[in-house]
């Protein structure tokens, strides 16, 4: 197109834009801002309930036998529920309430669901007492709390303060959380919270602990790393334009999402360009035929080669939906963009790595919730039932 037609295009666009009518959007924007804040607070509970509902619906797949990880591995993708209409929101903007078929992967191609043939790996132990680490759960809503499950099956409430985002340190000894824009840290053994930074932070970025526990990645104006020893705040390079940053277990990589729900991997200490994870969030239908996207990494393995994410399909959610990306339902290989099959029964309602790369998978199946711990090499170490009192809470961290 030559210069003339481009100028014509400019004029044509301006003329078409003139059709837009003025509107006073202050009131509606304020109401929506309040609704977003409210939905964030409710997100944990709603997403857990949604996941359990999907468990009853049996949305899951079998990967083909002989693939990585052995025969009959299950890959479950939770589809978010459609959000309710809200005043002033046009009907055309709503997600269709029609149930969607389960997500299909480009590679490996899925088979039809067949519960009777779903295979699982055999764990070395079925006792919760053989789980070496500590598991953290989050409950939002009217009675916010963070609960620690130890390997005796006992639960301990380690935080009761209202919080809109949190991160558990790699050793499980400290929790950083955001409360009304303030960043606070509390020991899981008790004590008064401390405020390591006196500016405002956003709960759009959950505080992410560096593996050695000396720094926190927060969103203060922009994503930045807070040195807990001296309070210095160092902004991330501008080139890392993204959100929801997470450190790999060895601290060498940062994995984050773009606003377009792609995933990127960048060196944590070098200025080399970030690498985009293939397929995920790719708007090109030829490259991403299943329309998979991940708007938020939840946790990263030791080296940044795998990331636990809430994997979703295009059009599967509406911005500000109460079904937020709070819970991982898949593990993605950051080199290939493939979702790793996981040998667990039921619907995955949580997945988190510890700093060494061990993976804890939470799955709901036939009214029970199981916890499966995989070693970094994929060996299923422990598979045990989760205490029923944790139902409705979100899995947020596993520390060893």
């Amino acid at each position, binding site marked *: 197109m030559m210069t003339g037609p481009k100028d014509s295009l400019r004029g044509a666009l301006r003329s078409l834009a003139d059709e837009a009518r003025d509107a006073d959007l*202050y009131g509606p924007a304020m109401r929506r801002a309040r609704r977003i804040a409210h939905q964030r607070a409710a997100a944990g509970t709603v997403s857990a309930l949604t996941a359990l509902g999907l468990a009853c619906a049996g949305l899951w797949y079998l990967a083909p036998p002989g693939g990585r990880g052995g025969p009959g591995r299950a890959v479950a993708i939770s589809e978010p529920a459609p959000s309710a209409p809200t005043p002033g929101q046009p009907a*055309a903007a709503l997600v269709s309430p029609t149930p969607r078929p389960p997500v299909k992967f480009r590679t490996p191609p899925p088979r039809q669901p067949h519960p009777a043939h779903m295979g699982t790996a055999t764990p070395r132990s079925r006792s919760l007492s053989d789980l070496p680490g500590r598991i953290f759960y989050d409950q939002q809503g009217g009675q916010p709390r963070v609960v620690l499950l130890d390997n005796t099956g006992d639960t301990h409430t380690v935080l009761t303060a209202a919080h809109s985002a949190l991160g558990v340190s790699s050793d499980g000894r400290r929790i950083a959380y955001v409360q009304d824009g303030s960043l606070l840290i509390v020991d899981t053994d008790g004590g008064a919270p401390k405020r390591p930074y006196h500016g405002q932070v956003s709960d759009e970025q959950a505080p992410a602990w560096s593996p050695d526990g000396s720094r926190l990645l927060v969103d203060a104006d922009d994503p930045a790393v807070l040195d807990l020893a001296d309070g210095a705040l160092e902004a991330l390079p501008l080139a890392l334009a993204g959100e929801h940053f997470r450190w790999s277990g060895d601290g060498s990589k940062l994995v984050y999402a773009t606003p377009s729900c792609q995933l990127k991997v960048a060196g944590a200490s070098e200025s080399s360009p970030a690498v985009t994870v293939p397929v995920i969030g790719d*708007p090109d239908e030829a490259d991403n035929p299943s329309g998979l996207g991940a708007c938020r990494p939840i946790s990263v393995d030791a080296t940044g080669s795998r990331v636990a994410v809430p994997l979703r399909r295009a059009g599967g959610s509406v*911005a500000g939906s109460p079904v937020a990306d709070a819970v991982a339902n898949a593990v993605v290989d950051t080199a290939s963009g493939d979702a790793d099959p996981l040998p667990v029964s039921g619907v995955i309602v949580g997945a988190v790595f510890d700093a060494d790369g061990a993976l804890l998978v939470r799955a709901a199946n036939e009214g029970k919730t199981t916890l499966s711990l995989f070693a970094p090499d994929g060996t299923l170490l422990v598979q045990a039932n989760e205490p029923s009192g944790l139902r409705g809470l979100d899995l947020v961290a596993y520390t060893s």
Partner: protein
Amino acid sequence: MDARDAEYADFVRSHTRVLLRSAYLLTGDQHLAEDLVQEALARTHRAWGRLQHAEHATAYAHKVMYHAQVSMWRRRRVAEVLPGTLVERPDAPTEDLAEAAAQRVMLRRALLALSPKQRAVIVLRYFEDRTEAEAAQLLGISISTVKTQGARALDRLRILLPDLRAFADAEARR
């Protein structure tokens, strides 16, 4: 209303029109455009405490709006293409009004035939007159992707709107 809220209210009232015009091109519909701008403004309000300068807030609102519209995983909202409504211009000949309206319907239909990202690039480059670097930064994509998407979009528009010059002529006669 405290000072912070008053600043935000001023920001909303002074920027809504600009945002709405771009949003209208992105969505092809008044209600969807208002919904999109509401989303951008609401999220800007959430971040207001961190946006110390007005230009930061402006950039943030634009960025949120484009990301919200482009991302397939967050929303996919565009209008059904319906016949355009004639805008009353009593001083213009009726046939010119009809022709201009028809051309706008064609343009809207052509824009909606583009992918969300292509449409966003077109709006940023040829309506907001942003540079490729600015468009890339706003969309969170590389400059090369902006170039590729822009070229593909122009190719598509060239097919869908072979007589773009005629459009400009019709608008000039309105």
